[in-house]
């Protein structure tokens, strides 16, 4: 059974590293759902979060292949309880009449207004993939004028997740 697997890798910050990861995934036919790269806290390193659609064995093979790349420092396959967050920016068609309803939805999803115009507004929302998916779905009836999503940024939890869970 295939499902989303989140892989966290530290890469040497040098030209062509992203090429190697992308070429590897293309050549081995790994299905990338999202890929985000940014400077890591360690100097000279980049931090990459790769979400692939794969079986459990397939995801382990992605990790095994990534480990073979010379400029990959470390790779971890995250577990379902680990942290993964997407960011989305959504411009919603929204005149004065619809505004209270849209703002109410934004509050439910803990989204922020980051731009406001007479006939539209831009909402910023972070959360796990499911939450962001739902956020977009509830906005869609109002008219989505533009949408940007980041793909996941992830981190392992240090300890067992709390039984109650912390809401995403």
């Amino acid at each position, binding site marked *: 059974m295939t499902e989303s697997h989140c892989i966290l890798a530290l890469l040497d910050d040098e030209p*062509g590293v992203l090429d190697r990861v992308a070429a590897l995934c293309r*050549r081995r036919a790994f299905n990338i759902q999202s890929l985000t790269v940014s400077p890591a806290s360690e100097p000279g390193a980049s931090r990459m979060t790769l979400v692939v659609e794969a079986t459990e064995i397939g995801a382990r093979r992605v990790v095994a292949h990534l480990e073979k790349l010379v400029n990959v420092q470390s790779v971890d396959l995250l577990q379902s309880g680990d942290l993964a967050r997407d960011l989305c920016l959504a411009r919603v068609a929204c005149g004065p009449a619809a505004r209270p309803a849209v703002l109410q939805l934004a509050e439910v999803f803990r989204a922020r207004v980051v731009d406001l115009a007479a006939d539209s507004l831009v909402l910023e929302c972070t959360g796990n993939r499911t939450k962001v998916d739902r956020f977009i779905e509830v906005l869609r009836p109002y008219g989505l004028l533009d949408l940007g999503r980041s793909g996941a940024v992830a981190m392992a939890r240090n300890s067992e997740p709390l039984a109650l869970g912390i809401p995403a």
Partner: protein
Amino acid sequence: MPELTGAQILWECLAREGVDTVFGYPGGAILPAYDALVDAPIHHVLVRHEQGACHMADGYARASGRVGVVVATSGPGATNLVTGLATAMLDSTPLVAITGQVGSGLLGTDAFQEVDVTGVTLPITKHNYLVTRAEDLAGVLREAFAVARGGRPGPVLVDITKDAQQARAAFDWDAAAPKRQHRRPTPQASIADLDQALAMLAQAERPVILAGHGITLGGARDVVQRFAESQDIPYACTLLGLGALPATHELALGMMGMHGEAWVNQAIQEADLLLALGMRFDDRVTGKLSSYAPKAKKIHVDIDRSEFNKNVSVDLAIHGDVQSVVEGLLAQATPRERPDWRARLRALRGDASVRDIQSLPDHGVLYAAHVIHDLWRLCPEATVVTDVGQHQMWEAQYWRHEGERSLITSGGLGTMGFALPAALGAQKARPDQEVWVVAGDGGFQMTSCELMTAVQEGLPLRIAVINNGFLGMVRQWQEFFYERRYAASPIQSPDFVKLAEAYGLTAFRVDSRGQIAEAVAKARAVTGPSLIEFRVQQEDSVFPMVPAGAALDEMIRRPAPSVLAETGADTA
């Protein structure tokens, strides 16, 4: 701290890495490096085509276990390496390719002879580098050699801009030591894994060892042989595993897979445990996956864990080098014997011998398999370098490879044209060893220009061209699967004897089995390179054959001699 040019740093680093020979072809963007080569203690073999240089470095590495080095210029020089790099990648050969590149100021401008060679070779190298500054060169080269050799070996390309070759930089060997190697320590098998493997072995009644190239690459021949003897486990070899373990040992089964002997594949299908050592369950080895070794539990030992569960799901995967893993097993395993299983395998083998082409009368027809069998009898100690196709499979079946690195062949990529240049490299690496090229008439014509390189180097290569007038393996597939519609498989050849003589070789022609011994004796007596053209039966096929996509035990067998006599099929 001495200050050297990038070009001087290049050769200094190569010499310190133990390189005594490089194979290459000069050109504009690599000229500064060639200028500095004059003063370096390294012999350069001038090839006739860069693809040949890459195969030579490959053959050099496979014959010696050292890193092979190929040098080419930018653009077309570099792109001509592509087939050779892919060949080395698929067969895990440690190789370092040095290419010149246009000046760093011209990068990305489509300058004369500019190609993005690090981009082109990204998927067919273990790693590659673009170096634009002389001061980076030593560190890159030292890491390149470490990467090429380390773990599962492979080719590494270093692309050096012309200005980086010309600029001067301080040369500090020690400071340039590779720093990223600690990230990939040699994996060690866990006690739990070894215990589980031992438990599975203890329960097995019909185990088979699948012996791959990793045994040779990991220096595990002795320990694997001792383990097989201690546990009384027969071993089957992959194509690249031939010679990893001795072929005439009582536990040796022979080659497995598409053209493996019938009893070998049958043994795998009946086995209750497969112990796969340094092999990767290639599709030519497994046949139809859903019916592969259905009764067997599978243990897979490999240094590259991305190979686990790729084609065949295994019950236990042990990440480690074959030598240390098998040493761990041997230390704890109780010796045992398996007389019933061995008797069963002897019975399987008996049925095959009546169909063996060795049992066929030749009626004056020269069979390629007879040629190869006789060559082996006459030169059992030789290193053989084969091309790709029917002759390659007959060689694998009829040449009994006792020694390690005694067969060099392009297995994974199946590169026609590999044999002659790779043999040249092998001869260069082992000057005192007798080296035979065994090639077909098709593949030989792909790289026959390297005959001149052999003459220029004065190498005593022995070349057997098996000429059947067809691209034989293509013809065989057309016969079996395409209703004998021989599209583009009949091939004409030059007079190979005259061709060889034009290059300055001594050459002979053989048309019947009775002439083989004398021709071989004459060829071996020649000081420089010599060639024998064997004109063999045109439409013979390699048996047995597992058709692509069929189960391993669904083999097309050679008709038994009685059937041949009735149909007259043997009296061509």
